[in-house]
């Protein structure tokens, strides 16, 4: 057995390099192109920014049922109000981005697609109420943008929603 051990004894020098990884990491907040218009209210805001912030603040969030993307009956009035708001003379020159969001369940592509379908349903609802489709873009943030971070039904209800960003 010891003879076997001696004959099988092998000394190998193994170098582990892995994949050389450059640092520092990429910071995506730098040099990533045009950023979304900020809607934060502060003293340095221009009239345009104040108008955008006002429109966003007056828009009504649309809420959805669990795992659904159809517009609920109780949300139709909010769709109507938003269409009227975005079709006012002062808002007509802006584009509207509809952001679809989901509750915390699921961490996959399906959740992002669900958020997109919610945004699309809202867009279709706005178009049905007279908005020009070309003014409206949609995006999904999946579960990445919770309005509420507690873990209960009331909170999940608040997260299944579509919100609006006004773009110059």
């Amino acid at each position: 057995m010891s003879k076997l051990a001696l004959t099988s004894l092998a000394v190998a020098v193994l170098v582990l390099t892995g994949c050389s990884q450059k640092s520092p990491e990429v910071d995506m907040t730098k040099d990533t192109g045009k950023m979304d218009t900020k809607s934060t209210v502060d003293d340095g805001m221009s009239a345009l920014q104040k108008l955008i912030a006002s429109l966003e603040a007056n828009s009504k969030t649309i809420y959805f049922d669990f795992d659904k993307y159809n517009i609920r009956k109780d949300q139709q009035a909010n769709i109507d109000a938003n269409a009227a708001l975005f079709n006012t003379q002062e808002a007509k020159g802006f584009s509207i981005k509809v952001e679809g969001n989901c509750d915390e369940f699921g961490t996959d592509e399906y959740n992002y697609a669900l958020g997109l379908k919610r945004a699309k349903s809202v867009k279709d609802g706005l178009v049905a109420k007279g908005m020009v489709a070309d003014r409206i873009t949609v995006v999904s943030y999946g579960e990445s943008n919770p309005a509420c971070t507690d873990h209960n039904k009331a909170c999940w209800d608040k997260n299944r929603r579509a919100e609006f960003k006004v773009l110059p």
Partner: protein
Amino acid sequence: MIKKLVVFCLFMVISFASDATVEIVKRMDVLPKIAVQDASNSMVDLNFRRTFFKLIVGDLRVSSHFNVHDEYLQSSYEGGPIENFLSDKKVDMILRFKIEQTLNSMSANVKVINAKTGATTSENSYQLPDKKRYPFLAHKIVIDINAQIGAPSIQWMEQSVVFAKYVEAKKSEIIISDYTLSYQKTMVTGGLNIFPKWANKEQSAFYYTSYNGVEPTIYKLDLRDGSRRSVISGSGMLVCSDVSQDGSKLLLTMAPKDQADIYLYDTRTRKINKITDYSGIDVNGNFIDNDQRIVFISDRLGYPNVFAQGINDKNVEQMVYHGKNNNSASALNNYIVYSSREDKSEFGRNTFNLYLISTKTDYIRQLTATGENLFPRFAKDEDTVMFIKQFQNRSALGIIRLNANKTYHFELKTGKLQSIDW
């Protein structure tokens, strides 16, 4: 003798487990018992030595090919009559390591000893230029000893994991790690960056989606030179779901007309072809059958489920006839692993389980029993699945060893896992 015994026992186990969907409920517990000895110089920090020891012991256990004696033992590297036999421990084998460190690098000498004869059966030396990557060194040592006993490959332990984690609303980071999360290196920060996907087998680059511009954009980050380039932008949502074996083609989920469908993107010609065409949701494309077909998730039956179709064939085949909310899947060869929400109720929080099916049989194997088990991904072999485990507002990487029927969890200390690839 030990090698022959192990090979025989593993052959028995594997023979009965050739179909991974068949769960092994009774197995022979005759794995070789192994002890690990630390023979490092006392100049090396004891805490680091113990950490390294724990990694090796953990790897041996996760391999499922050893019966691990997990007591921390010290010895000289040369060994002696007592150290080479450990008679009181009744072990079959001893793995003895001696690690040394410099400012940036580290090295290890490793002996494998037959505890029945006291003879050294193999000896290896390892050099690691970047000592921060020491978990990979531990994994490599265990991969080698696993190969020495003739056990099925655990090469997957060497694979790097790339994952995205949420750190706050609309903010996430992309990190490269080993499978235990012991090594972590942050690669992308700032804003929302999600769905990282390795670009090639060498893991020298990865794709990811950034939400920081006007539209979601897929970038490719090359780890060799740190360069980053934009691949494609699109409205709505944009995800690189899979990469072909040769790295030349991507399966993208795109929504150019506000409608999520699966597209084939050729990285050489930059041509895009639409594969699926449905007014609902089609997402999560995965190549199968030598990249000629895909499996994907669709709600075309009114609920998310797993389907397949050819790249150039519009005929859609339903792959799963179980569950009413199967929202994520991964495929390898003849196997599909998917997550299924057990209860359509929104209150059933702990209700996502993983299931494994074979395209060749009708059998379904349940892989998890409790909690939120999501985002399953096969390793390079059919025997290992990685997934995301969410529990009590925290996240962990899960590893399922299918033949051994064992699951391990590695907790993420901060943040919430968004997606993984390895």
